[in-house]
C-alpha cells in the first residue's frame, strides 16, 4: 500500500508526519533541529529518501541539512571534520551553508543594490533560504531561493552553492523591494516537460521565467495590477505570493498575488484575474489538484493588514473550473473564533488516486483532507507556528 510523508517546517523545528494510503492514522516524528526555524524541507523526486532542509536562526544564520534515510538521520553536507576549511590562499572553502552572491563580471555583472522600504537603494545581504527545490532528474542537484532575493544551485548534494546570477543580472534589480516578510525568492517551479525552463517568484519583484536553464531570465508579469504601481505596463515591483502548476499542463500557471488570484495559459506571458467570488482578494498559498489541472485551492485571508481568515472561519476555497467560480470547503475546519494564518509554502497535495491536500497554520495545526478537500481533519493541533508543508507520496 502507498504511504504518505508530510514534511512540516515550523518556527521551532521540523516534523515528519507519516501515514498509509488511507491517511487516517498518523505517526508524528520530531522535532528535528529543535529551537531552529525550518523555513522549508523537501524530498528529491528521484530519491525520496533524500531530503533537504533549510534551518536558520537570527543569531547563527543559515544551515543546510540533508538526510539520505528519509529523515531518520541528518547531516550538514559540508566539509568533514579534520579537513581544511580554507583554501590555500586563505579564503574559506565552500561549505553547505555558504551562500555568496556572485559579483564576478564574467557571469552577468549582477546588481549590487535593490530598493529598500524607504525607497533608497540598499545592498544585497544574504539572510536565509526560503525554499529548496530538488531537481526532477538528479538527487544531488537542488535549487535554493533565498532572501535577499536570488537563486542558487548546488550540484553536489548541497555541499556548495553557486548563484544563477543571470536573474539578478536581468537589470530590474534596483526596482525590486522587500515585502513585509523580506525580499525573498519563495517559489521555484521546474517544468517537467522542458528541463531548460523554470519559473520563480519574488516578493516584491514579481515572477520570472528562464528558458535556458537559468542563464537568462525575463519578467512574466503582464496583466498583474497593484494599486501602488500606477503604471499598467510595469515590468516588475509586484508582490507575488505564490505560483502553482499541474505537472501535466506546465504551460498553465496559477498565482496568488498580493491582491487577487490570477491565471496564465501561456507560461506566464500574460495573466488574467480569476478571483471570481472569493470572499477576499488576499492570501498566501495556492495549489493545484494532482490529477485535475483545473482544480485549484486557495485560502483567502482578510486583507494585508490583518492576516487572518474573514469572519473567524477557516475556509479553503476550491475552484473546479480553473478559477472564477469558487466553493468554500469547511467540513472539519474551525468555523468560529479562528484567527490563524496559512503561509505561502504551507500547502501541498499528494498524488494518490484520491488526491490528498494538506496545509499548516500559524497556530500549529496541520490539516489533511484525503478526498480533495471535501472533508478535513487535523493531523496535529499543537505544533509551533507552521512555515512550510510538503508531501511525498511513496509507492
Amino acid at each position, binding site marked *: 500500500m502507498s504511504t504518505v510523508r508530510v514534511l512540516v517546517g515550523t518556527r521551532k523545528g521540523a516534523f515528519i508526519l507519516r501515514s498509509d494510503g488511507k491517511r487516517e492514522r498518523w505517526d508524528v516524528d520530531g522535532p528535528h533541529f529543535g*529551537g531552529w526555524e525550518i523555513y522549508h524541507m523537501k524530498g528529491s523526486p528521484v530519491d525520496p529518501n533524500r531530503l533537504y532542509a533549510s534551518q536558520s*536562526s*537570527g543569531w*547563527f544564520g543559515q544551515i543546510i541539512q540533508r538526510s539520505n534515510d528519509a529523515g531518520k538521520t541528518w547531516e*550538514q553536507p*559540508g566539509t568533514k*571534520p579534520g*579537513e581544511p*576549511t580554507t583554501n590555500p590562499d586563505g579564503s574559506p572553502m565552500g561549505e553547505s551553508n555558504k551562500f*555568496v552572491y556572485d559579483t564576478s563580471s564574467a557571469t552577468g555583472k549582477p546588481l549590487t543594490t535593490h530598493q529598500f522600504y524607504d525607497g533608497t537603494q540598499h545592498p544585497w545581504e544574504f539572510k536565509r533560504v526560503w525554499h529548496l527545490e530538488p531537481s526532477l532528474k538528479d538527487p544531488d542537484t537542488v535549487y535554493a531561493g533565498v532572501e535577499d532575493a536570488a537563486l542558487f544551485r548546488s550540484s553536489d548534494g548541497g555541499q556548495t552553492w553557486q548563484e544563477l546570477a543571470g536573474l539578478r543580472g536581468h537589470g530590474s534589480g534596483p526596482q525590486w523591494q522587500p515585502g513585509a516578510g523580506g525580499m525573498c525568492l519563495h517559489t521555484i517551479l521546474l517544468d517537467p516537460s522542458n528541463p531548460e525552463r523554470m519559473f520563480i517568484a519574488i516578493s516584491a519583484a514579481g515572477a520570472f521565467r528562464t528558458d535556458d536553464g537559468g542563464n537568462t531570465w525575463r519578467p512574466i508579469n503582464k496583466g498583474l495590477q497593484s494599486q501602488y504601481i500606477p503604471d499598467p505596463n510595469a515590468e516588475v515591483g509586484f508582490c507575488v505570493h505564490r505560483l502553482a502548476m499541474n505537472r501535466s499542463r506546465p504551460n498553465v500557471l496559477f498565482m496568488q498575488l498580493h491582491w487577487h488570484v490570477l491565471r496564465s495559459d501561456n507560461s506566464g506571458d500574460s495573466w488574467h484575474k480569476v478571483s471570481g467570488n472569493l470572499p477576499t482578494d488576499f492570501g498566501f498559498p495556492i495549489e493545484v489538484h494532482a490529477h485535475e489541472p483545473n482544480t485549484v485551492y486557495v485560502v483567502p485571508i482578510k486583507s494585508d493588514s490583518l492576516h487572518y481568515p474573514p469572519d473567524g472561519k477557516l475556509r479553503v476555497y476550491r475552484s473546479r473550473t480553473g478559477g472564477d467560480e469558487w466553493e468554500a470547503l469547511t467540513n472539519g475546519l474551525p468555523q468560529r473564533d479562528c484567527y490563524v494564518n496559512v503561509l505561502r509554502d504551507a500547502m501541498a497535495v499528494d498524488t494518490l488516486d484520491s488526491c490528498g491536500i494538506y496545509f499548516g497554520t500559524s497556530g500549529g495545526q496541520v490539516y489533511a483532507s484525503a478526498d480533495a478537500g471535501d472533508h478535513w481533519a487535523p493531523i496535529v493541533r499543537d505544533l509551533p507556528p507552521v512555515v512550510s508543508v510538503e508531501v511525498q507520496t511513496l509507492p
Partner: protein
Amino acid sequence: MIRVVLPFHLRTLARVDGEVELEVNGPVTQRSVLDALEARYPMLCGTIRDHVTQQRRAFVRFFACEEDLSHESPDAPLPEAVASGVDPFLVIGAIAGG
C-alpha cells in the same frame, strides 16, 4: 589547551556536550581560537562569523574573564587566563531577557 563554551544551539549543531577544548598554535587571539574551532567543527563555519568578511555575526558576543571582548580586534591577544586554559572563552547568543 584553550577552553571554549558554546551556546546551546551551536553545541547541538556541533554535537558536543559541555566545553570544547582546542589546541591553538601561536598567539591566542579571537581569530586563532575561532579558526581552530571551525577546523575541528566545520559545521560551525558561518554561524559565529561571516563566511566572507570573517566579521562576528551581529547577535553573537564574546566574553572571557568577566569582560566583553566582542569589540576587541580579532587579532588582539586574549587574556592570559584564556591562553593558559584557566578561564574559558565564551561565545554567547546576544539575548537580553526573555
